[in-house]
């Protein structure tokens, strides 16, 4: 069968003030009808530039296709040279014969149009349908992407839908004209894991039913393993390796592919192991060998949280009175031992970040107690709280936003030390040098500004800043989520090394179950502000008891093409809201202990 798309020696350049910069070069691949080709690579690898070139959208971002051929087989059987096509022809192809799904469903939908309008516009333009026919087709499309209550959704606006439903609408828009090729650019990166599972299953089903080809762009090797027929691995604007998904995962030829695969944690690989283990890194064998057997510490409680509750007021009406409350954290209790990691996992909006911030009193909890090293944090006044912050530090998700762009790294790392008057002059300088060495940042970075560093380097600087005052507890809020997978592995290994050497305790807030499985001693699963299940990592992962934990674990994609999970469309779960009227009195959290330390919330 003839290929739908063939890309031959594509080269795209971007004009900048310092001369042309090559976006991608020498990129060649083909996609057959009914095939899913995954283009995988880390940030800056040129994977999005490749897909935008296919739509000739790259020109709107300042790029130019300077070399190579892009051939697309049109619906009428003729072949189209995309590089030479007029903008009129491309207008017919875009959205009609090639559909596209973007990463962020909220920004891909126009907030001032109803769902119906978003869907019918393309149909009326490309297919020449009347308003009635287009509306009828829009309803069919919503049904085909299995949105509940489709008639009502047509009249709603994007902000009224949940993230998963929005992405379904975006997919329905892409599918509206029955394209022969669907380009999906990181379509599930912004979504929660259970919603990701739904969307991946949906794309698979639509592909099967319509026989269309899919170009799937992602950074996530686990998603690749679940979705791809063939895989293109990209690095620095070039293709590193191409092959079937089995070849790539089981017998990778290139070192880059091997390193990429090694750095990906696979859910389930820690079965039967009690202690956390460092991430695998190719070329880091020495560091791995240096990992000492876990020191057996006498369990000593560092952090004790009792019945922590945090609620945010929802204001409404002309007088801006509090009309309802968001129950962000609801009756949460746990303990964290010295030198151990407790991971709080859950999906967006489950209250895990609010829980971490309430413990540090970056937001004020409504009630409950937080004890750190025998001191009640909640009872401290403003002055003592500032003093107490030396014991508890935080590492934030976004290393771009958590460092001040106007200050040199040296000053930012030194700031906590100066705040507590711990050192000054040459002592301070020496301490900062020591911290940079500790997180393995070159000393010459001390005088640099944050924008001169890569994401991973910035996160190391943020960790150095958190370590500056010798804290006992570090709250890491999605600290590695924004990083590329190989960098993520390095930063995680650094965190584990620091824990062993310094006896740090981590409260590790994450949505990534595979990462949590590797690094945590204990795991707490949060849902709607409560911990629904908590216990030793092995117990929670190997023997999940709460239905939510079970559904969360079954939704995680596994980086193994022989363990496919999303063949069929999954059941759509209703969204639940943590907003309750003022009069609402939630029940206390009561737990059943099914094994020593393994607690499950009673329904």
């Amino acid at each position: 069968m003839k290929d739908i798309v063939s890309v031959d020696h594509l080269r795209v350049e971007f004009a900048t003030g310092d001369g042309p910069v090559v976006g991608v070069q020498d990129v060649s691949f083909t996609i057959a009808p009914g095939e899913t080709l995954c283009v995988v690579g880390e940030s800056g690898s040129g994977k999005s530039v490749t897909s935008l070139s296919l739509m000739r959208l790259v020109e709107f971002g300042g790029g130019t296709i300077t070399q190579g051929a892009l051939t697309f087989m049109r619906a009428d059987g003729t072949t189209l040279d995309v590089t030479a096509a007029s903008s009129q022809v491309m207008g017919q192809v875009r959205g009609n014969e090639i559909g596209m799904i973007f990463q962020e469903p909220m920004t891909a939908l126009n907030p001032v149009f109803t769902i119906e309008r978003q869907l019918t516009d393309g149909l009326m333009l490309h297919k020449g349908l009347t308003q009635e026919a287009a509306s009828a087709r829009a309803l069919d499309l919503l049904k085909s992407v299995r949105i509940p209550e489709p008639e009502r959704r047509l009249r709603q606006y994007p902000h009224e839908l949940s993230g998963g439903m929005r992405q379904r609408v975006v997919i329905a828009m892409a599918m509206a004209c029955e394209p022969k090729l669907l380009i999906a650019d990181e379509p599930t990166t912004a979504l929660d894991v259970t919603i990701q599972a739904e969307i991946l299953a949906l794309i698979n089903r639509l592909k099967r039913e319509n026989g269309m080809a899919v170009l799937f762009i992602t950074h996530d090797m686990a998603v690749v393993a679940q979705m791809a027929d063939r895989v293109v691995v990209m690095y620095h604007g070039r293709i590193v390796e191409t092959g079937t998904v089995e070849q790539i995962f089981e017998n990778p030829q290139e070192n880059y592919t091997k390193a990429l695969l090694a750095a990906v944690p696979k859910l389930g690989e820690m079965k039967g192991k009690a202690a956390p283990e460092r991430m695998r890194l190719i070329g880091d064998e020495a560091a791995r060998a240096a990992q000492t057997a876990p020191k057996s510490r006498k369990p000593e409680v560092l952090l004790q949280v009792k019945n922590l509750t945090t609620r945010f007021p929802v204001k409404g009406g002309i007088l801006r009175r509090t009309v309802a409350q968001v129950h962000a954290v609801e009756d949460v209790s746990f303990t964290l031992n010295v030198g151990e990691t407790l991971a709080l996992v859950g999906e967006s909006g489950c209250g895990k970040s609010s829980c971490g911030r309430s413990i540090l009193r970056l937001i004020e909890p409504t009630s409950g107690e937080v004890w750190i090293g025998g001191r009640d944090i909640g009872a401290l006044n403003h002055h003592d709280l500032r003093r107490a912050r030396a014991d508890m530090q935080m590492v934030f998700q976004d290393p771009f936003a958590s460092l001040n762009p106007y200050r040199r790294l040296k000053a930012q790392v030194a700031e906590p030390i100066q705040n507590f008057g711990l050192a000054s002059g040459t002592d301070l300088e020496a301490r900062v040098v020591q911290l940079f060495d500790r997180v393995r940042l070159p000393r010459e970075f001390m005088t640099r500004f944050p924008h001169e560093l890569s994401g991973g380097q910035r996160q190391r600087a943020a960790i150095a800043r958190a370590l500056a005052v010798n804290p006992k507890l570090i709250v890491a809020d999605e600290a590695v989520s924004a990083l590329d997978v190989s960098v993520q592995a390095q930063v995680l290994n650094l965190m584990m090394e620091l824990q062993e050497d310094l006896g740090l305790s981590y409260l590790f807030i994450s949505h990534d179950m595979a990462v949590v499985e590797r690094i945590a001693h204990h795991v707490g699963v949060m849902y709607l502000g409560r911990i629904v299940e908590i216990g030793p990592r092995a117990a929670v992962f190997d023997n999940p008891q709460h239905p939510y934990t079970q559904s969360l674990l079954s939704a995680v994609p596994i980086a193994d093409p022989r363990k496919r999970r999303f063949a069929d469309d999954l059941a759509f779960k209703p969204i639940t809201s943590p907003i309750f009227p003022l009069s609402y009195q939630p029940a206390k959290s009561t737990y059943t202990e099914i094994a020593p330390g393994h607690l499950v919330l009673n329904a």
Partner: protein
Amino acid sequence: MKRFKTTKGMIGIILLLLIALVAIVGPMVIPPDAATAMDMRARRAPPSLTHIFGTDQLGRDLMYRVILGTRTSLEIAVSAVVMSIVLGLPLGLISGYFGGFVDNVLMRLVDTLLAFPALLLALTISAVLGPNIQNTIIAIGVAFTPYLARIIRGEALRVAQMPYVEAARSAGTTDLMIMWRHVLPNILPAVIVQGTISLAFAILAEAGLSFLGLGTQPPAASWGLMIQASRDQLDIAPWTALVPGLAVALTVLGLNMFGDVLRDILDPRSK
């Protein structure tokens, strides 16, 4: 891109230096009384060799008047804007950073001032204090403060929610130090932009006050006074508006170019 930025900066600096030179040296080198001497036979004379920029309705030479007016206009405008920044910056910074009750009280105060048109406010202040240069500066400075405070508050509100501010707080940095080290540098670009725009408005505000007899007192000259005087003769002697207008435009252009470059110099990301 980089080269363009530096040329732009150079042009801005050269323009501003020239204008400053005119303001400082100008009044000393022009013949005494040249700017105030009336020549009733040459009223509203178009630009010629004897009067390069033409003359006004009283036959005074416009070139000399523009030179004389430079000092007055800039002195008043720059001082007034500096004053509005000195007053508005802490107001906006405190309001935006702390939010809540403090923000409510300060911003209602600012809103009250905003409810009066800036010129009316300046007029009232100037009328109460009496017409002289210092009072004109105070009047314009106070009248411009609420606008600046509003803009700075918005920026401070945005920056106060950035993770690096939360990071500083969790590292035990005091509020005062967070405002100084983290918030202030990040809102400075907005202050610079607003400051340069305000300068142009301050020059014109001075004109309005002068027109009503409360700003610069004739026979002294200021750009604003000249523009104001040209109002009813635009059709027969357009150069009387054009000449001081061009002076204002060049000053604002120079300031804007310089402001842009200054903002880039302060931003480590643009290096």
